[in-house]
């Protein structure tokens, strides 16, 4: 095994050797540099492998042949090996990336580069504090040199500010070191730790100086203006090295030196880390310049790792995994992002849409963004989950909350950036040239990020490899993305079919999960079938759709909290990409994502509290939460309600569902919303009646008002898909109200609504989606009379509408009947009336939809429309068959559900012999009602047919007005502002109060960030003053 000392010898030897060539032989010296970097990577890699397979033990390397206190020693343990390996890898990849740039500048720049990487290695390995100072100085001079790789006036200023700041810092470090030596008598870190300097006040100040300087090297929040300028102005290739390499070395040094200060320091470091993480992310929300934004984000992430280092005594043995997972994730993702920004070379994030030209680069960009926020299959997801779990179980909940707020703030600007990339329009002419040496590092980093995610499974309780099976299939779909759409469609349907067949045994026993499993899987397949009518390739649609369905499947089949959260985040990621495909859906997808991420974090906190009380990852732990139960249940409830868009959390739904693509809307609204409902049902089952009764009462009222406002808003909509979206809000308000009653009848009504809503909403969105595409407009007042052209879709919408309105013959009435009995038995009378009134309003807009699309006068530009494509009609008519079966034989569906619910709630519904559902209040025989109505219908039809005989169809007469066309023609269309009367009477209920509320909240946050941003005035001297203030304040807090 090559000794680690050769890293230094090799690097310095080559650096001096490069001096020989002066200005000539540029390419050759470039390759010499790469060889050197590769050698260093090999050495540290070889040590890492040795440690991983246990064949090596921690080694102390003595220089100059003497024992440590008298000479400098380097240590090569498993930690050092991993960190040096990471640094050398980033050095090698950075060298490859910057190859051309370094060649242009000359081979002295190459030697500076290789020396910089060597200095980071030694910083990690050395155990001597003065040696650490020397190599930190080498690092800072080399960085100052590297900043001016692209000679712009900005990079010059950044360089000077950097030198000023590091100069002041290193001076103070010197004082700290010399006095530490004076008190401890030795320069070796272990010697100083042994001397326990904290005992005396002066010793404490010396240690304070050392640690404060090391913290300042990591650019803590208020005093990091100089750091941000470096990120913004330097060449992004070098920015990657600073953000990944130097930060990793700096964090390890802090970890190494912290024991010097005793455990009080751990607390200070975690507080500083938290302030940095939240502060820089918050200020980042206002940022428009790409590199500076990456600077804010990397400082934030470093702050997070610093917090974790500070929390070491609390986290115990989980510390190593969490710190490494978060650091590795930041390391890989940030390097990748900087490299991509090096290729894109655009300053402002709004014109990054050129990234869409190269789909491979785009996918990698997305992977980095999602890795940073902490979405599944990435290490940060596992790290953050484990961090929150152990934090809450050691009951510092506030730290967990602040961390989540910080990463939510990061989500704000990262997703805005992603939105710009995916949706901003693209100038055609400029082409994106990607040289191979810039592309390969990014690919390597992405691959290792995914592999890191895979390998972090054994470290987290409750995680198992089974969750990665769907991801492998999604990867496979991603690879075959070049095929035409219909092949991919068949493949994905087959895949989903097999996967659901595979998972079925998992849910077989539990009827509730089987129903939801059926809705997710069967509904998913149906909505995918609709995709057959789409031509072309539909890049990126199928992997993402499968990801959503995989997430849904995992939620239903898993039995532990980790699996549930894994599936939840997977589903959110998948659905985000589905929604953002719509033409005008950028703002809506953005608000959807923010609400979902916030909701997911609330759920995580809730799970944390459950884990804290039950100490297990199983979902059963939700049953009896002893740690702050009411808080836990409220958090979980609100978290799930962000997904069911209840009142107050609903503003994302109309835009997200309204603007989505025609076959995405049914997926997202009919199938996805049920995930939130499933979550709520689980929660209420585990919570039980007595613990949550006030919460349930409130949720009942929330459900009632959501139903009312949702349906009312739907009836005043002019846009067809928006109307359906608002109606989904209303229907989910029903479901929430029903299950909040916690009685068998209530839950039966809830289940009926879940099944009904799935059936008719899928039909409505599919058909309306098809029509909107055919008719070319969303607005109801531009449509009409399509019954003549599309009779089949008219019939489908008619049946769906009757089910939605709850009219007797069809299954909708079953829901209403159960609902009525439940309300009276439960005693929630007033809410019952509100929800019933909402039901009538539902009838109104259902009719408006039917009327304005199909009936009335056929518009002349729709004359030659033909029926919507069979690929939509087939699933629609399967669903209609489902509705008829459910309406004709309600007992076959409701009885098993009733029995299943019987073991949770007292049973109040029996099924009499002749299929008559009997409660103490009333009875209802769906089958009989159906038969009677159909027979009456046939009789009366026969009677009418008898007395009218043959009729001749009247051609459409064009109602022309005597006066000339009014200025706004749509006002004459009947469905324009159709329920004006109702609107004038109770329109005030639907005023956009809540949307304004959320807009004000976001404006307040952004203004605050704007004010704090003023801190960075750009003047180098001011930054130096910030550093001194920071030291004085830190001193007063810690020691003064």
């Amino acid at each position, binding site marked *: 095994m090559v000794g680690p000392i050769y890293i230094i010898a090799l690097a310095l030897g080559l650096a001096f050797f490069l001096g020989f060539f002066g200005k000539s032989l540029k390419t050759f010296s470039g390759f010499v540099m790469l060889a050197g970097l590769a050698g260093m990577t090999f050495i540290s890699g070889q040590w890492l492998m040795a440690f991983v397979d246990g064949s090596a033990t921690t080694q102390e390397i003595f220089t100059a042949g003497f024992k440590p206190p008298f000479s400098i020693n380097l240590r090569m343990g498993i930690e050092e090996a991993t960190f040096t390996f990471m640094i050398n890898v980033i050095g090698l990849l950075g060298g490859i990336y910057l190859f051309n740039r370094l060649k242009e500048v000359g081979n002295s720049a190459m030697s500076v580069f290789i020396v910089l990487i060597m200095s980071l290695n030694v910083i990690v390995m050395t155990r001597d504090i003065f040696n650490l100072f020397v190599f930190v100085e080498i690092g800072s001079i080399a960085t100052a040199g590297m900043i001016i790789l692209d000679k712009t006036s900005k990079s010059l200023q950044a360089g000077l500010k950097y030198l000023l700041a590091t100069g002041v810092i290193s001076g103070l470090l010197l004082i700290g070191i010399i006095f530490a030596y004076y008190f401890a008598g030795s320069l070796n870190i272990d010697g100083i730790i042994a001397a326990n300097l904290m005992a005396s006040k002066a010793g404490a100040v010396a240690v304070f100086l050392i640690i404060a300087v090391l913290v300042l090297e990591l650019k803590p929040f208020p005093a990091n203006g100089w750091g941000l300028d470096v990120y913004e102005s330097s060449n992004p290739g070098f920015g990657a090295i600073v953000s990944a390499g130097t930060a990793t070395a700096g964090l390890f040094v802090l970890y190494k030196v912290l024991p010097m200060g005793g455990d009080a320091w751990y607390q200070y470091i975690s507080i500083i880390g938290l302030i940095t993480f939240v502060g820089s992310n918050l200020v980042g929300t206002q940022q428009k310049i790409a590199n500076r934004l990456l600077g804010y984000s990397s400082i934030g992430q470093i702050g997070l790792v610093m917090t974790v280092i500070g929390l070491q005594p609390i986290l115990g043995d989980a510390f190593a995994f969490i710190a490494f997972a978060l650091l590795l994730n930041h390391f890989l993702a940030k390097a990748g992002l900087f490299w991509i920004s090096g290729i894109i070379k655009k300053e402002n994030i709004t014109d990054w849409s050129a990234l869409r030209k190269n789909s491979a680069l785009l996918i990698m960009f997305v992977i980095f963004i999602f890795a940073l926020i902490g979405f599944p299959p990435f290490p940060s997801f596992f790290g953050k989950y484990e961090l929150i779990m152990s934090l809450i179980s050691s009951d510092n909940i506030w730290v967990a909350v602040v961390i989540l707020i910080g990463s939510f703030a990061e989500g704000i600007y990262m997703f805005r950036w992603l939105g710009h990339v995916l949706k901003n329009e693209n100038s055609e002419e400029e082409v994106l040239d990607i040289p191979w040496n810039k592309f390969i590092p990014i690919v390597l980093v992405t691959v290792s990020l995914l592999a890191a995610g895979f390998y972090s499974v054994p470290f987290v309780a409750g995680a198992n490899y089974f969750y990665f099976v769907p991801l492998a299939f999604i990867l496979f779909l991603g690879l075959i993305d070049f095929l035409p759409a219909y092949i991919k469609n068949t493949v994905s349907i087959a895949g989903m079919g097999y996967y659901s067949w595979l998972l079925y045994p998992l849910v077989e026993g539990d009827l509730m999960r089987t129903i939801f499993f059926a809705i997710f899987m069967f509904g998913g397949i149906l909505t995918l079938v609709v995709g057959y009518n789409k031509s072309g390739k539909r890049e990126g649609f199928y992997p993402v759709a499968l990801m959503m369905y995989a997430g849904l499947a995992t939620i239903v089949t898993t039995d532990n909290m980790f699996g549930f959260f894994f599936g939840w985040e997977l589903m959110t990621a998948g659905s985000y990409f589905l929604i953002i495909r719509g033409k005008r859906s950028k703002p809506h997808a953005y608000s959807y994502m923010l609400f979902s991420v916030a909701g997911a974090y609330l759920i995580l906190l809730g799970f944390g509290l459950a884990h804290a009380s039950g100490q297990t990852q199983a979902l059963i732990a939700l049953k009896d939460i002893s740690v702050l139960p009411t808080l836990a249940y409220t958090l979980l409830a609100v978290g799930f309600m962000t997904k069911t868009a209840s009142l107050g959390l609903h503003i994302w739904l109309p835009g997200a569902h309204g603007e989505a693509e025609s076959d995405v809307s049914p997926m997202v609204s009919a199938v996805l919303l049920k995930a939130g409902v499933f979550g709520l049902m689980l929660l209420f089952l585990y919570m039980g009646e007595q613990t949550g009764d006030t919460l349930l009462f409130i949720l009942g009222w929330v459900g009632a008002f959501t139903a009312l406002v949702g349906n009312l808003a739907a009836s005043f909509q002019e846009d067809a898909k928006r109307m359906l979206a608002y109606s989904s809000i209303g229907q989910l308000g029903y479901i929430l109200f029903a299950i909040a009653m916690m009685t068998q009848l209530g839950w039966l009504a809830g289940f009926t609504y879940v099944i009904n809503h799935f059936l008719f909403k899928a039909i409505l969105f599919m058909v309306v989606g098809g029509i909107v595409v055919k008719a070319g407009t969303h607005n109801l007042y531009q449509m009409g009379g399509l019954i003549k052209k599309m009779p089949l879709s008219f019939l489908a919408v008619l049946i769906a509408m009757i089910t939605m309105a709850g009219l007797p013959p069809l299954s909708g009435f079953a829901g*209403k009947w159960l609902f009525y009995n439940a309300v009276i038995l439960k005693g929630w*009378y007033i809410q019952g009336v509100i929800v019933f009134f909402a039901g*009538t309003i539902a009838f*109104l807009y259902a009719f408006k939809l039917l009327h304005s699309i199909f009936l009335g006068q056929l518009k002349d530009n729709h004359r030659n429309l033909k029926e919507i494509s069979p690929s939509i009609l087939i699933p629609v008519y399967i669903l209609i068959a489902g509705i008829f079966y459910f309406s004709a034989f309600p007992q076959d569906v409701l009885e098993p559900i009733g029995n299943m619910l019987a073991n949770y709630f007292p049973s109040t519904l029996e099924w009499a012999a002749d*299929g008559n559902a009997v409660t103490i209040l*009333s009875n*209802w025989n769906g089958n009989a009602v159906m038969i009677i109505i159909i027979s009456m219908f046939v009789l009366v039809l026969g009677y009418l047919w008898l007395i*009218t005989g043959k*009729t001749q169809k009247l051609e459409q007469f064009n109602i022309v007005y005597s006066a000339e066309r009014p200025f706004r023609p749509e006002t004459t269309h009947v469905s324009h502002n159709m329920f004006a009367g109702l609107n004038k009477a*109770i329109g005030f209920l639907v005023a956009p109060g809540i949307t304004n509320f959320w807009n004000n909240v976001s404006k307040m946050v952004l203004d605050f960030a704007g004010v704090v941003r003023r801190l960075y005035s750009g003047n180098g001297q001011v930054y130096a003053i910030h550093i001194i203030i920071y030291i004085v304040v830190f001193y007063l807090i810690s020691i003064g």
Partner: protein
Amino acid sequence: MDYSIEKFLWAFLGLFIILNWGMLMSALMRRIGAKLAGRIGVPLYQPWVDLLKLMSLKTWLSHGVMYYIGPVFRLVGGVGMFLFMPVIFGIEIWSNYSFSGDLILLLYFQSFGMLGMAMGASESGSPHAAIGISRGLSQFAAVEVPMTLAVIAIAIQHQTFSFSEIMAAQQGGIMNWTLFTNPLASIAGMLAMLGAMSHSPFNLVKAPNEIPIGPPTEYHSSFLSVLRTNSAILHVVEAALFMNLFFGGADSWYMYIIKTFFVYFISVFVGMVFPRFKIEDSIRWFLKWPTAIGIIAVIVAAYW
């Protein structure tokens, strides 16, 4: 749960009686109205004559499938309401098919007919019909609120939704009619009935007399005859519904005829006195007073 022909025949007979009584009642009402206005009014057999005339008219014109099926929905709505409600309390043959559903089914069945009319009329494409529909639906929604409040109040009071139990509770003397045992609910119910009957103050929707506005504008001949038969049946059945709920139901045909006449007379009488409301005013009116009374009724019934 027997589908025996015999049950069907009794129901058909009941339907025939109701149809004739409906036509007679509307003719009587028109005469009384005319008398109040100083006119003689139509002869009592007028409705039969109109019906026969309409049925005999041959017509070839139809605006399409939904236009054709609209009146069928309408009539099925009317007949359905009749079938699902017991006519005479106590007598099994006259209880029709009320065992397969109850008050909730009836409440929802009202909108079944409304839906049919709306679809048929809008298929005809005439703007007058469309305006009438939007007004009708809005008003129907507003009427539903006090109606539901009344129904819920009664349901709380009697702890049941099934007709027979409600009627049973009201037997034996005037005093235990719902009118007196639960006055607030009855007032709310009666006010809602005014809207349901769509007589004068709230008849903007059909407004048959002055201008031919409203859903049936395009209907003629045999279609109109079907609509007429239905409106006749509907008047009686609506009145019967409110009779069963508030006035103790009928234990014999004789009682049935008298009570439905008086209930129907109340709405006509109110219609004579008050002028027609604008659509927003009617909605606002319904959502103000009747709903307030209804809510108080529910509170009183529930917590007192």
